[in-house]
Each structure stands twice: as C-alpha cells, then as structure tokens.
C-alpha cells in the first residue's frame, strides 16, 4: 500500500455478490451468523459494519468472557467466530481453544500483529484463519468458506464412524453447528449425528492418534485371513488381539482388526436379526462358498434378505465378503435361502425357487466382491452387476467410492430407517461397489432439504422404506422420501446397473412386487454413466471386477475435489 497514492475506490458494494441468488442457492452466505470479539471499540464498530455489509448477522462482544458465555448459552446460535488475539481479560488463543473444545465452531483470529510466530500460534491452536488488521471488507467476504469447510470435514468425520481408522486424529471433532440455519429439521439431524458421533468419538479417540495412520486395505485375502482367524477362534471368543496374532500380518494393528471386527459383528448381528421371509429375488453368488458362512455364525443371511433388510445383492456381497475369495465349496446354507438359490450352480440344494425377475446367469458377479465386512458397505453395488429387476440406482465412480463419506448405508435398522449413516468404509478399505449418489458431495441427511442443491442428481440407496436418502445436499430428498413412502419396507432396491435384459441404462426395481415403490432414480443420469462398457457381466473377468472394486482413490486430494458443487464426474465410473 503506497501511502503516497490514493488507492482506487473499492468497487461499490452493491454488486451481485450481496444480492440473493448469487449462484449458491438459498442465499448463502447471507445470514451467516458471526460473533465478533474485540476489545478495541473502533475496530469492533468497523467490523460490525463491514460484516453487515457482507450480509451477515453480526453480534459484537468486547471481551472474551462474555463472548464465551454467549456461545455457551447459545450453542447453535452462531456459525463462525472472529476474535482478536490480544484482549485484556483472556488471551485470544485461549478463547480459541475453549470454542474449539466446547462448540467446535470455526474461529478466525485477527490482530494488528503480523509477526510469523503469532500467526503460527493461531494455526497451532486451531484457528481456521488469521487476518491481519486493518481488515478489509474483501477479507470478510469469504469467511463463509470456513464454515462450509468445517462442515464438510464434519460430514467426512461422521462417515468414519464405526471405523477406527481415521486419516487424521485431529480431525475428530464434534458436529458443527447447524449449517442450514433456516431449517430446524436439519438441526435435529445434526443433533442426531452429533450424538452418534460423540458416542463414536470416545472410542475412536482411543484408536486414533494425531498422526496420520496408513490406510488399511481390507483386501479379499486379508479379509479371508481375518475370517479364518475369527472362525478358528469362534465368533464368541474372537478378540482383536488373538485375531491379530492368528492373522500374523505385518503392519496390521490391533486397532485395525478391532474396528474391522466391530463392523463384522455388526453385520452379523443385523443379519441374524431378521427372520421373516420375503422373496427378494436376487442373485446369489454363483460360486460363492457358503460353507464358512453358516459356520461363522448363526447368520441367517437368507432371512436377512428375505425380510428385505438386506438386498439380496448385498447379501451376496456380504457373503462374498465374508468368505473372501470364493472357494469351491458348496453352499450348505442354500436350503435356507430363497434368494440365493438361483444362479448358483454350486447351490446343490434343490432350492430352486426361481424368483420372478431373476436371471440366474447374471448372478455371478458378487462373489468376487472383495472383503469388507462393513455392513454399511452393503450398499455397494457393482455397476456391472446385474439383477434381473435392476434397481434404480446410480453408481458412482470408484474414485468416489473410495471416499467413505459418499457411501450410503444400505442397511437400515428396520425401525430406524430414517437415518442414513454413511457407508463408512474406512478409508483404506477396498470397496464393495458402493452405490453412491452421483454428485454427492457428502451425505446429507434425510428428510430435510439442504440449503444448496448440488448440480448432480442424487439417488437413493435404500433398504428400507423409512430410509433416508443419501443425496448430495439433499437434492432428491423430497422426491425420494415421497417415493419411499410408497415402499412397503422391502428392500431389494438395489441398483444394478446395466442389468441384463433391461436396457443398459436402466435400473429397475429388483422385485417386481416392489415396482410400485417407485424407487427410481433419475434414469437420465445413467446416460452419463458408462454402463455401456460392460453390458454383459459374463464378460468380465474376475480380475476386472476385483480391480475395479479395489480401486482406491489415489489420494484424498481427490476427495476434496469432489466437495464442490460441480457434480460428479462420469469418468470416474468403475468401468
């Protein structure tokens, strides 16, 4: 800033930015609730005015104590805090810490002090930004990004629940304040999430450190070892330590095993909960070896499927997952299950109930699915996989699939279907195919429309009528929800892309009886998907599938890219 010249006046502030409809729907960031804390009254007044000019809602406090007090009384009342570093009653960094621990709001530090070490201190204490005074209005215009970023971080974290492996322990944070401040329903969802997350947090905190852990990829082989170990010990007696020992895999930690086991148990538990029979015509793995399954637990996968709690496909996936690489053993369980009856030459039992829409031949895709025992990953579907019925679903790219936060949980508690937790495939896990809403940028919560509408479509993964849909930013929410209402709670809404016998781009409901559930995803999106490549599953080699499934996102940078409003990229499809 040259003191000798007068700077050109800033652009008039009545530009399009402030106006509503600036491209980001719902007028965001207008209305962002800012708390500004500064003992300097002059600065405070100026900031107040600037923030208001930005369209934000401003609250001023001239000392840290009263600011903290206000925040405590009004936990969801603010989106972001801007605080001065030097204050008489409390150091700004201390305030920053308090806020971080108690409310976990994004905090921007500011000071006339521009020395590096102070800025560093800010960074170390967790400030999301550091502004140097004098603060210009331009600097304030963009502070909303911190809210969004934090929010996304939260969502990402949330998806890691259930997984003891997290990228970065420091990111374990509580849920953010309600992002959509205009919707109280969202708030409810957030609280729900926050609660769940908090529950998970304790446990996860133990497991995580502040160091980045290398991802553990639960490959088919690894999972098989795991399963063998568990099998050997007996499911009741299988403890992480012993499993780890039995597996004898270098580099694998007890924590890895523990979280994997947890998911496995969860899956088993859910599987065994469902008893009723329901004809979910679906494929069963052709070559899957079911032997181990039955012995693993009282798992009644069959029943699971029939109740509709687990789409048959996912069931198949589970089995495959549980079993690791398919062996050639026959399937003892066959008798139990209707669904798996067909399409499995190895199913020796005479159970050949032919489900209406099934093409047996098509069923051979799932058994290849690499291990991952996460129940939540049931939702993953092989885009190549086919079901006779097909389901309306869209499959996202594996690159995206690798990102846990995108996954939708197919599984739902029978009763509690309203919550979609995300397929939290832990970061390193190979993925069963996961159905991901295209253009999803993070799971959104059911039943409430999100403030912003992603360009991408959304789709639903549902296993339950009460399902919440995982839509990116809630876009299809209403649509799905209303559709869901029609559902009878039957599962089987698996999207199988390119189902045989169906038009390549169509995903139809698996079970004709469910057809009227109209769980339909925008088929037109499918056109984007590259299903055409492999219309005939039979043509896929095992290796193709596995490699497709195992494809992991290269790096998390990729993830970040997705978190924008650009929609998803068709190129990322696993084909």
């Amino acid at each position: 800033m040259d003191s000798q010249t007068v700077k050109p006046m800033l652009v008039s502030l009545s530009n399009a930015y402030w106006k509503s409809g600036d491209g980001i729907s719902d007028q965001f960031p207008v209305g962002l609730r800012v708390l500004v804390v500064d003992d300097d009254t002059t600065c405070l007044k100026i900031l107040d005015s600037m923030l208001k000019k930005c369209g934000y809602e401003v609250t001023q406090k001239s000392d840290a104590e009263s600011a903290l007090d206000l925040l405590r009384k009004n936990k969801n009342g603010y989106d972001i805090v801007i605080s001065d570093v030097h204050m008489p009653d409390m150091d700004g960094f201390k305030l920053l810490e308090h806020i971080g621990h108690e409310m976990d709001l994004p905090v921007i530090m500011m000071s006339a002090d521009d020395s590096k070490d102070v800025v560093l201190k800010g960074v170390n204490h967790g400030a999301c930004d550091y502004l140097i005074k004098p603060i210009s209005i331009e600097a304030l215009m963009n502070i909303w990004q911190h809210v969004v970023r934090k929010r996304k971080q939260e969502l990402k974290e949330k998806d890691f629940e259930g997984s003891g492996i997290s990228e970065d322990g420091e990111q374990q944070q509580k849920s953010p304040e309600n992002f959509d401040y205009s919707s109280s329903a969202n708030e409810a969802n957030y609280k729900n999430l926050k609660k769940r997350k908090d529950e998970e947090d304790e446990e996860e905190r133990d497991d995580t450190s502040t160091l980045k852990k290398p991802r553990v990829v639960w490959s088919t082989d690894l999972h098989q070892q795991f399963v063998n170990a568990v099998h050997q010990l007996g499911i009741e007696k299988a403890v992480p330590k012993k499993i780890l020992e039995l597996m004898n895999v270098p580099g694998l930690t007890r924590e890895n095993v523990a979280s994997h086991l947890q998911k496995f148990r969860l899956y088993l538990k859910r599987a065994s909960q469902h008893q009723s029979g329901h004809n979910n015509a679906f494929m069963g793995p052709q070559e899957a070896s079911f032997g181990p399954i039955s012995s693993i637990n009282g798992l009644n996968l069959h029943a699971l499927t029939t109740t509709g709690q687990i789409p048959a496909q996912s069931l198949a996936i589970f089995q495959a997952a549980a079993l690791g690489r398919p062996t050639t053993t026959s399937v003892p369980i066959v008798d139990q299950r209707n669904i798996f009856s067909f399409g499995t030459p190895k199913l020796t039992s005479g159970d050949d109930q032919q489900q209406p829409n099934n093409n047996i031949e098509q069923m051979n895709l799932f058994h290849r699915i690499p291990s991952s025992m996460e129940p939540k990953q049931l939702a993953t579907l092989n885009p190549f996989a086919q079901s006779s019925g097909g389901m309306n679903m869209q499959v996202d790219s594996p690159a995206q699939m690798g990102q846990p936060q995108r996954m939708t949980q197919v599984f739902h508690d029978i009763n509690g279907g309203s919550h979609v937790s995300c397929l939290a495939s832990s970061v390193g896990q190979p993925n069963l195919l996961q159905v991901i809403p295209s253009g999803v940028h993070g799971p959104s919560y059911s039943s409430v429309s999100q403030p912003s509408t992603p360009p991408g479509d959304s789709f639903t993964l549902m296993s339950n009528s009460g399902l919440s849909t995982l839509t990116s930013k809630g876009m299809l929410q209403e649509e799905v929800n209303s559709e869901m209402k029609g559902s009878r709670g039957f599962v089987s809404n698996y999207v199988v892309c390119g189902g045989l016998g169906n038009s390549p781009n169509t995903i139809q409901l698996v079970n004709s009886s469910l057809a009227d559930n109209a769980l339909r995803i925008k088929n037109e999106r499918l056109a984007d998907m590259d299903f055409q490549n492999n219309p005939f599953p039979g043509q896929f080699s095992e290796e193709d599938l596995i490699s497709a499934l195992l494809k992991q996102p290269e790096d998390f940078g990729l993830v970040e890219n997705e978190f924008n409003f650009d929609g998803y990229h068709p190129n990322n499809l696993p084909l």
Partner: protein
Amino acid sequence: MVQAIKRIMELNQLQRSFLEYTAALFREGFLDSQFSQLYQLQDESNPEFVVEVVSLFFEDSERLINDLSRALDQTIVDFRKIDAHVHQLKGSSSSIGAQRVKNSCVSFRNFCEAQNIEECSKCLQQVKQEYLLIKNKLEALFQLEKQIVAAGGAINMVEWML
C-alpha cells in the same frame, strides 16, 4: 436565479476543497486506503458512519495515550503493559487509516521490546503528535463535509477517490 447559481458554485467550491484536502492527506501519508473503506461502509442506513467511527477512534486514542503516559511515569515501568497499549493503538489507528499514527506505534513497540524508557518516551511524544495532527485534519475535513451537505451536496467517495 443568480442566487441558485451562486449556491451551486459555492457547493462546487466546497466539494473541490474537500477533494483537494483529502487528496493531500493521502499524499502526505496521513491517511491510507483504509480510510476510504470507511466511506464505503457509509450509506443511507448509516449516514454518519465515518464520523462516528472516527470519533470512537479519538476517544480510544486519547485514553490509550493517557495510559501510556502514566505507565511510562511509573518508577518501575511495565513494558508489557505499555506494549499492549501501543499494540491496541496500532490496531485502531490502522483500522481507520491513520497511517502516520500507526507507523509511530510500530517504532514505539520496537523500543518497548528493547525496554528503553527514554526512547519509549520519545516515541510516545511522537505518537501524541501524530495523533493530534490527524485529529485536527480530520475534524477540518468533517467540517467541510458538513458544509457540503448543508449546501445540498454529498460526499461520494466512490467517485472521486482516486
């Protein structure tokens, strides 16, 4: 008719004076672009914003300068406290664009660090001086502005600030 023209000419004159005066202040380093930002924040809903903020600044500054004087007068000088005051003065002066005041604060802080009482006293004098200077000038400016407004004109920073 002549009266009207006369008035318009007077107004023009005033506005020109205002323009020149402000330009000089910028040129001589008394003010920086932050000052123009203040005018941006002034609008119909906030017509007196600049005057209000600057008044606040005057109040804060005078208080701080007094505190500083007292602190330096102590037998045992608390440099940390002094530094804190100076820091604050630096902050507020920079936020309204009182550049010379801000700069004198910067030097002041350096001597605080060095814990040099004598130099600090000198700095304080410097700060005081700069403060009084800018106070005078801004008050004159506001007077001019008042006259302009009274004469039916308005200050529109956007247009004339270069």
